């Protein structure tokens, strides 16, 4: 099993969710996060004063799937997330050692 973590633009979350559901993914977790990458934040101007916003607001999407669905998930996330501009985000794939469904105590693939 793998966990796919994607940091994406907040404006893209609805499209990504729809693409994941259409790809057969039945669950996901999203979190409001802040951070920066190569673009090193952004500059905002208020009343003529410039402020460097180092941590830009993003959304993190987390999906746990069996290994053979990882490519499908990556495609479902990266397609709608891409604008071609700096700040589109990143996708990380991590190994998952165990999954347990709390309600039934099922584990492994059955718990996903």
């Amino acid at each position, binding site marked *: 099993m793998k966990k796919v973590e994607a940091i994406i633009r907040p404006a893209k979350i609805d499209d990504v969710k729809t693409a994941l559901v259409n790809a057969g993914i039945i669950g996901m977790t999203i979190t409001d996060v802040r951070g920066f990458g190569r673009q090193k934040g952004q500059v*905002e*101007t*208020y*009343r*003529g004063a410039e*402020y460097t916003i180092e941590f830009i607001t993003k959304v993190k999407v987390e999906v746990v799937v069996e290994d053979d669905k990882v490519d499908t998930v990556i495609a479902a996330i990266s397609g709608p997330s891409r604008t071609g501009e700096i700040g589109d985000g990143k996708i990380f794939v991590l190994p998952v050692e165990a999954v347990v469904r709390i309600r039934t105590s099922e584990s492994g693939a059955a718990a996903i």
Partner: protein
Amino acid sequence: MAGSAHAALAKTPTDGADTLLMLMGSALVLVMTPGLAFFYGGFTRAKNVLNTMMMSFFCMGLVGVLWVVIGYSLSFGTGFNSPFIGGLEFMWLNGVGGPLGDAPLADGFAISATSFALFQGMFAIITPALISGALVERINFKAWFWFVLLWSLFIYCPMCKMVWGGGFIGPFGSIGALDFAGGTVVHISSGVAALVSAALIGPRNVWPDRTRPPHNVPFILLGAGLLWFGWFGFNGASYFAAKAAGFSFLTTTTSASAAMLTWCLIEWFKGGKPTAVGAATGAVAGLVGITPAAGFVSMGSSILIGALTTVACFTAIQIKAAIKFDDSLDTFMVHGVGGTVGALLTGILAVKEYVPADYFPLSAKILEESGNFGMFIAQLKAVVFSYVFVGIGTAIIIWIIGATVGLRVSAEDEERGMDIVSHGEEAYEPMTN
């Protein structure tokens, strides 16, 4: 408009419509103070928003009482027979009116004296609240209490007497300056006090490298909207007559509209985008600029005043940023500069026919004999005197407070945030709560 209150025992009967205008105007002016709290609160960091809003809100409590006890009497009494300060005869509003029938204010005015005292009290409340914008995010709240108390008594009340209460700056005094609704009394005095007190209290510890952008821009727009709404009372009711209110309502809104538009156009031209904060600031600048002029200038002039005030305030903010002066929320740059420009333009643009001799004797005489240039000189004298008086007076008050209760919170407390340190509260609960 001059408030030669109680100068003569009234022979004019009170008029219901005029008095109702004053009561409505008072309510409108009062709402400006919570509006200002939102305006200022939006600019600060999330951990300082309650303290920032309290610095305005609290004035409704402290000055609301102070005004009735002694402030009104010092501003509009004549007991001391002085051109600088009133008297003690109206303490506790004695002799101003009672529940069974108000006395008219004075001969020629058809409003009740209590409605005048109430209306003026609302101005007294918002003026120190305006100063807070220069001091937020670092002043100790106990120091703020004493500052509002002392500043109201020793700076605001004399200014009010000198300009509106028959004192020497206004149309009944030796300078003969015009101040329709508070360009000098409210905006120049709060702006200069902001400049001096911000200089003496020093910059925020995080400033300028770690300052944050406004934490809630919608608050700023809400506050600016409430200020604009309340300003209809501020200016609209300052002729004390319902039949004349429409004109100053109109000049007020045209100036604000022109000022907001100008600010947006400048930003559009300079930075490519008109900002919400800029629009809100522009509107307030236009409202400040028209305040001394609202009943004295033509509709076209009101648009010009709005546009020119915006240019002046925008430039002042750029200069402030360049010289790195920490007036946290630009109080001097908007109110001080805006009030000054408005006061001077009042002299240049005042229409002679709008300044009748029975209400503004010396000003009308100046306009008659020396025209707008003479009026400009009178306005200039009033501005210079106000800067000197308010500047020195505020410095003394700040020095006294600094030497006794202390002005600032500790660097550690400034880092923790003023809300929790000064009030034991937080504006926004943690997500895990």
